[in-house]
């Protein structure tokens, strides 16, 4: 196997993949709406589980940033140690090591270093939080064109809708009937007294 300095390679991979994923998610958040009934129900019913899954995924995705940032700190520190510029102190190395290993320094003697290390640690939580906000499914609405059925009055059915039925005239064919959706009739003045026929609970 050829000798390779893998750390810079992983940095490139992390940056490229993070850019690709983030760009795709940004496009999704603007352009795409999904109306699948099962998915919407799933999101409604399992919000808690979804938030856990989102948290795990966002933590994984944030490694792409925290690893790169840690590596950049390490590269620059190592480079500085071999350069002829001002040499770093042991406290500086301690701080940078804390930054790379993501562990805060709690020491009274070096307040500034402690504050920087804690601030750095907090800043490193930002990518995971942002990723969580970027990938959390959000219930919304989507508008689509559709065909809406409306009544049509054709000549072939004019014998129903265009026939007047006065009181005391026989017009049984116009009386219609009752279905689950209600009482329907072409003689509304006669058939809309629905309380009695709909009183039956059978």
């Amino acid at each position, binding site marked *: 196997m050829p000798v*390779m*300095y*893998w750390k*810079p*390679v992983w940095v*490139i991979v992390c*940056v490229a993949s*993070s*850019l690709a994923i*983030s760009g795709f*998610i*940004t496009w*999704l*958040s603007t352009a795409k*709406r*999904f109306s699948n009934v099962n998915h*919407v129900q799933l999101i409604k019913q399992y919000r808690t589980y979804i938030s856990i899954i989102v948290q795990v995924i966002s933590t994984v995705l944030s490694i792409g940033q925290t690893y*790169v*940032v840690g590596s950049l*700190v*390490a590269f620059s520190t*190592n480079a500085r140690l071999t350069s002829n510029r001002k040499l770093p102190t042991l406290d500086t190395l301690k701080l940078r090591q804390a930054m790379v290993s993501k562990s805060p320094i709690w020491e009274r003697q070096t307040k500034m270093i402690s504050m920087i290390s804690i601030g750095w640690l907090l800043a490193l939580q930002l990518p995971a939080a*942002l*990723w969580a*906000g*970027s990938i*959390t499914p*959000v*219930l*919304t*609405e*989507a*508008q*689509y*064109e*559709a065909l*809406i*059925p*409306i*009544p049509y*009055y054709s000549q072939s059915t*004019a014998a*129903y*809708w*265009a*026939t*007047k039925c006065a*009181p005391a005239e026989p017009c049984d064919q116009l009386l*219609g*009937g009752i279905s*689950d*959706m*209600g*009482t*329907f*009739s*072409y003689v*509304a*003045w006669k058939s809309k*007294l629905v309380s009695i026929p709909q009183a039956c609970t059978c």
Partner: protein
Amino acid sequence: MHLLIFVPSARTGLLLNAVSQASSRDSSIPQHQKLDATGFTYHGRSYGVGSAVGLVQPQLLNGTVGTIRNYSFFEDGYECQVSCQYNKTSQLSWIKSDLVQTPGGIYAPQGYWANGSLPNGVWDGFPTWAVVNEGFATALAAVNSQSRYMYGFLAGNAYAVLNQIQCEARFSPTRFKVEVGVSAKNISVIPVATGLDIDPSRALANISFHGAGYLSQTLTTLYTSVLGDSFLRNIDNVRVHNNRTQAIDQDVINAVEEGLETLIDDFLGSTGAAQVALLQETRSTQGFVVLEAYRIGNFPIATTTLSLVAIIGLAALGNFITLGLWHKISSRPDPDFLDFKTAIVSIAKGAGSALNPVNNWKGDSDDRIVGKLEVKATENVLALKLMESSVHGL
């Protein structure tokens, strides 16, 4: 909010409920139920359109699926406007006919013939009954001639405010925008423009117009007028809405106009619903459906994430350029002095350690040989000693 009232004759049907709820008692928009069992409610007038709502579902296009939250479409129909006034020289009257004798004369049915004429023609009239006198009877004359649709009220003493009111109904072909809230089950209809005449024969308008007259004919009983009662309740709605202790003529006129408009709207809508439910005769119009949906993430946050990733990428690029990391990729790794093991071994090597693994170390942070060196703190815990492991294999 509507008046809750328990009068048996007030509960005989949805059409009459529509009349008695045609006007609002407060500043809210009047609401009334769609005349079927779909559970939808019209907010404001129905204008007789939207009758297919709840009976048939919108068809989504291009394989789209989803749960419909609301939808809207345009439908042509008729906007019916009713204008009324008192006509003190009304030519409608009751003509007394036979009296049916009862024991002791109690509830003796007195026959009447309601007849007369309206400004646009002679009304056929109809016979009816009333107890003792015509006090509890109401007749609504409806004459459709000379291209005019006219109503005239003939009412007894119990409905005196309705007597001699005459109205004209006008049907204008209108295009309506219908908005349907599926989850809230409400429908609102807004006239937007002149529409196509859906029935140039005007049979729909004629039948709807006469329906109100037929209701008065069939719902005037020996003891009461159910239609008259419904109009009285709507007059009370208008009185309360206008914050008056007693209804004035204008209240009565407004209540009758709105009541007749609602009634005609319902007759038109009822015929439309019958076309859909009984004959399945529909045509499709283009509309918009709002579906329940989800999206991934939030745009401002996604953009912020992308910006952060891009900034980190630029920082990496700058680091690669300034430190020449491109050229180092295919070479031996630099020692990482922030790595604990590397730091200790490199210090030991710098201090001239005699240990072979330290001497032979090439700076590789994951070197397994130096990784096996043992570390021990001195007794005063101020120094570390590196020792070669006595046990192999770990």
